[in-house]
Each structure stands twice: as structure tokens, then as C-alpha cells.
């Protein structure tokens, strides 16, 4: 069984035809990880023995005549900030280097119930803080398309693993673009669902009002399949919505006629690479050829999104990361004689530079005398950004633009300048602030052979519309390139 380019539907077709077994696909996947991952660095933990044990169990179920479940036999990679019972979950941080979760995240639990095989845990920026995956305490991830370039962050391991066919699908988390940016840089599909669509239970908290778990896949149809499994109300996450979960796959009818596609001029301003601009515009014209109606819209507060985000996200992070103190789990500094000294030394030795920077910034904007000037101000600007979308969506059904202003940049290019790194998120952050769903799909290659991602946004809980349009495009203009591995 060929696992290069393998998707859920092709795997299930082969299983139905008896052309392969779950165990064979699992073995091939593990062999490929063994062969390629030493160079890529996409995995922090490979779940080898347990994956094979489970594959054999699933094969026995199938032999007994059990029907295929939505994800039976699908090798899934999970970002290492999502808790997996009994399987090390580090958040790519020294402070959690030995943490073994006593429970599964709800999204993981649902994947397993649907028959998926947990193949391993993927590398990421420490605590999901970064846009290049260079902030991992356990090493960089290389872009499968060019080993000297970043895979994007923070779910860089998940993006690289899907692009390199080291799994069929992966889960990432997206607080400011961390699913969509690696998807764009690695030439795969990345979906950030509506805030509240997928339970955050077991996702290690970074910016709790922004975080969402989302799938990274090779096709839009696979994203629809995974979302259908992981979406829905969870009593363990009070912000998860009981809005009904539709059959996203059934929504993919290839139809896009009459869909109003809004193009915000703010997404095509200065700073956008000319080649990215040209490829994204070509894709927009293709949408028009398929019958979509192109409409001009405005998102006037776009230029304030990064400032707004880095206040809100760091404020929430400074509070969320207070729990890492060396008492209940993870790393503890040795030799401290008082509790306070132990806290400080544990945190200083356990956290990397970017995490400390964000804790510092978040503590500053929440501190007495600065709260109103920074944090409260940012919450008000967030309202303005959400209104921008509300007004734009009165005139269109979807909003389209580039996922990132550039293609994958070079390793080390932005590590000395945190602010320049933050600006890579300019187009992705808006969706998190507004709480709306967005998807990145690959629509072309640069002259240097690097993938270019297009992003679509929809109204709250309209993932079906988003997926339908992305699927119609993918069907008409398939992205058939593969990384040179």
C-alpha cells in the first residue's frame, strides 16, 4: 500500500477492498517516520508499540465483520500541547519534559472512539508561542519543501508531518494562526474552527479566549471528516457550543455558484509579497470562474490586530502559565531553600526565552496602573474587529485573502527580532480575535518551489460553507505538488 498522498477515503477504499490492512499502513507509516524524521524533526514522541498493538486490534475487529468507523485505521499525529493519556505531553517545553497526562483531551478521545491510531506527538513552538517552530526546547522542525526553511508555527511538526506523509492527518492548535500558517508553509490544508466548536478540554491553555484545536490534512474532505468527529459540546469545556454539528462531508457538493466572496483590500496592502499576491489573485479569479461573485469589503481595523492580539494573548498566557511552579508536575529546580526561590528558579530554568517574554508582557499589561491603558483597551479594539467582520459579512458569505504575507522564511531569519516574527501572523490573527472559522488551502507554488496558501473566513459556526467553497476549488484546481523528499 502506497502511503504517499494517502487520504482517509483512499485508505478506507483499500481496507474495504481487502487491498491492505490497518497494520500494514501503520507499519509503513512508522517506517517512513524512521527514515525521514531524523532530518525533519516533526515528532517529539513516536507511539510505536501502542500504535501497532491498536492496529492489530482494529484488524481483528474488521475481520470479525465490524463496519469501518469514520477514522478506522487512520494514523493521526497530535500536537504535543494536546493531552494524551499515558503518552508524554511536553508542550515542547523543558518545564513539562516528563509530563505524562492522566487523561486524554476530548478531541483525542473522540478521534480514538472513531477508530484513529495515535501515531505520535508532534513538535511545536514552546506552549504554542511562535510562528516558526524555532521556539521548541527540543529542536527545530525543517520544512519538507526546503530543509533550510521553517515549517511555520506553532504547529510546525503537525504541518511538516502531514506534508511529508508521516501521518494521514494531524491535530494542531490555533491561537493566532498556528494551524493555518504551518499548513500554508507546508502546502497542506489547515482549519481553525469557530471558537467553541471543538472542546478545549485537555488542550494545554495558552490564550483561552483564542485557542481552538483544528485539523491539518491533505484534502478539504479529510478536514471535514476530522471536524465532524471532534466538534460538539463537551460538558468539560463550558465554552464549547451545543450548536448542532452538521455532516460536513455531505456539504461538499462542489457547488459554489452565487457564493459572495469578499476581498478585503486591507489584506492586500504593503508588506504582501508580490508573488503571493499574484498567486492568491489568480485563485480568486478561479473562484469567479467557478461561479462565485467577487465583492469588495473592508476590514478597517486589520492594522490594529497584531497589537490587540499580543496584549490579549500574553495577558491570558501570563495567567495560564502561572501553574508551572515545580510543585505538581514537570520540572523542578534543585537546591532551592524556600518555596518562592523554588518557584522562581524552576520557572527561569524551565521556560524558554519567548515564553518568558510573553509572560513578562502579559504581566505588564495586566499590572496595576496599566490594565486600563493596555488590556481593557485591547478588549475594546477586539469588539471593533469583530464588528468589522459583522459588517463585511452583511455583504458577502466568505472572506478571502492570503494566509501569510510571504512563503516559508529561512531558519534563523526572524529569531533576533520578536516583533518581525509577530508580523507573520498579520492575516491569521483576525479570525481568532473575532472567534470565526478560517481555513488555509494550498493554491500554488512560488518560483522557488514553495507552497502558497489561500485563506477563507466564514461567519461563526459556518464551517460547512467554508469547507464547501474550499472543496469546490480543490476539486477544480487540485494542488498536486509534493515536497521533494
Amino acid at each position, binding site marked *: 500500500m502506497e502511503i504517499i498522498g494517502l487520504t482517509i477515503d483512499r485508505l478506507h477504499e483499500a481496507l474495504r477492498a481487502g487491498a491492505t490492512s490497518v497494520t500494514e499502513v501503520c507499519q509503513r507509516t512508522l517506517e517512513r517516520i524512521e527514515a525521514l524524521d531524523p532530518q525533519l524533526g516533526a515528532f517529539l514522541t513516536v507511539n510505536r508499540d501502542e500504535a501497532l498493538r491498536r492496529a492489530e486490534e482494529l484488524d481483528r475487529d474488521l475481520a470479525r465483520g465490524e463496519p469501518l468507523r469514520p477514522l478506522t485505521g487512520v494514523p493521526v499525529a497530535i500536537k504535543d500541547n494536546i493531552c494524551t493519556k499515558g503518552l508524554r505531553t511536553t508542550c515542547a517545553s523543558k518545564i513539562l519534559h516528563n*509530563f505524562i497526562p*492522566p*487523561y486524554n483531551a476530548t478531541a483525542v478521545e473522540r478521534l480514538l472512539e472513531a477508530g484513529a491510531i495515535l501515531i505520535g506527538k508532534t513538535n511545536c513552538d514552546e506552549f504554542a508561542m511562535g510562528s516558526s517552530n524555532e521556539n521548541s526546547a527540543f529542536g527545530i522542525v525543517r520544512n519538507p519543501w526546503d530543509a533550510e526553511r521553517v515549517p511555520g508555527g506553532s504547529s510546525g511538526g503537525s504541518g511538516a508531518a502531514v506534508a511529508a506523509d508521516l501521518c494521514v492527518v494531524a491535530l494542531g492548535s490555533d491561537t493566532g494562526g498556528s494551524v493555518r500558517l504551518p499548513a500554508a508553509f507546508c502546502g497542506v490544508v489547515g482549519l481553525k474552527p469557530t471558537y*467553541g466548536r471543538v472542546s478545549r478540554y485537555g488542550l494545554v491553555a495558552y490564550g483561552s479566549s*483564542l485557542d481552538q484545536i483544528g485539523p491539518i490534512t491533505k484534502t478539504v474532505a479529510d478536514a471535514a471528516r476530522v471536524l465532524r468527529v471532534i466538534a460538539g459540546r463537551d*460538558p468539560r469545556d*463550558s*465554552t464549547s*457550543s*451545543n*450548536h448542532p454539528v452538521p455532516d460536513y462531508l455531505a456539504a461538499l457538493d462542489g457547488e459554489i455558484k452565487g457564493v459572495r466572496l469578499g476581498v478585503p483590500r486591507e489584506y492586500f496592502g504593503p508588506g504582501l509579497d508580490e508573488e503571493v499576491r499574484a498567486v492568491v489573485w489568480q485563485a480568486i479569479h478561479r473562484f469567479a470562474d467557478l461561479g462565485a461573485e467577487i465583492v469588495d469589503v473592508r476590514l478597517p*481595523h486589520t*492594522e*490594529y490586530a*497584531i*497589537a490587540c492580539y*499580543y*496584549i490579549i494573548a500574553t495577558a491570558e498566557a*501570563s495567567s495560564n502559565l*502561572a501553574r508551572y511552579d515545580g*510543585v*505538581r*508536575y*514537570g*520540572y523542578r529546580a534543585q537546591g*532551592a*531553600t*524556600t*518555596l*518562592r526561590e523554588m*518557584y*522562581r*528558579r524552576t*520557572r*527561569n530554568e524551565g*521556560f524558554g526565552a519567548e515564553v*518568558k*517574554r510573553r*509572560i*513578562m*508582557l502579559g*504581566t*505588564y*499589561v495586566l*499590572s496595576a496602573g496599566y490594565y486600563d491603558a*493596555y488590556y481593557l*483597551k*485591547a*478588549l*475594546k*479594539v*477586539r*469588539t*471593533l474587529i*469583530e464588528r468589522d467582520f459583522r459588517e463585511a459579512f452583511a455583504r458577502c458569505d466568505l472572506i478571502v485573502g492570503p494566509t501569510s504575507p510571504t512563503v516559508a522564511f529561512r531558519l534563523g531569519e526572524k529569531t533576533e527580532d*520578536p*516583533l518581525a516574527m509577530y508580523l507573520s501572523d498579520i492575516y491569521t490573527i483576525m479570525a481568532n480575535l473575532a*472567534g470565526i472559522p478560517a481555513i488555509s488551502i494550498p493554491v500554488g507554488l512560488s518560483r522557488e518551489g514553495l507552497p502558497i496558501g489561500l485563506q477563507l473566513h466564514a461567519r*461563526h*459556526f459556518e464551517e460547512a460553507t467554508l469547507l464547501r467553497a474550499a472543496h469546490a476549488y480543490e476539486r477544480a484546481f487540485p494542488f498536486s505538488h509534493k515536497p521533494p523528499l
Partner: protein
Amino acid sequence: MPITKREVEKIAELAHLELTEEEKEQFTVQLAAIIAYVEKLNELDTTDVPPMAHAGRDERADYAQRDDVVGEGLGSELALANAPDPARGYFRVPKVIEEG
């Protein structure tokens, strides 16, 4: 408003971080640049704008909290399984009461 090294030290104390001299110098410069950037928000008049409190905004959803029913806990063995220094069913820590 430029941030001083003194302020960086104060924030580090609030955040329970013990920074090295080098980190203090570096953060003073970097945080000043980031804060100067985020002050961009002051260009906007937000006098009558309410702060956004919740990101989901699903008018059709019911966010009522679940009933307050006793469920199953982790149990002390599992809760202590990741502890750096467990002792007799507790998390052991260095001396809590400091002198002076």
C-alpha cells in the same frame, strides 16, 4: 512610554521569574519595542465601545454550566504520579515561611 530596567525587575518579581542580568537587559529593549508598537491602539477612539468579553458569540447556543454533580476524580495516586517530590500522599515543597 519607555520601559525601564527597574520595571522589568518588578514585573519579573510579579511573574515569579528570576532573570539573569543579560535577560533583564535584553527584555528591557525588546519589551520597550513591543510596547511602543502596541500603543498604536491609542490612535483609536474607543469611548463608547464595550470590551469584548466572549469570543464564541453563538446566540443560538446554550452556555449554561453543567449540573453540579459529583463525578469521578483522579484519585491521589494518579494526581501525584507526575509530582517532582511526592511524600506520603502530598506534594512536598521547600520551606514556605521565609525569615525576616
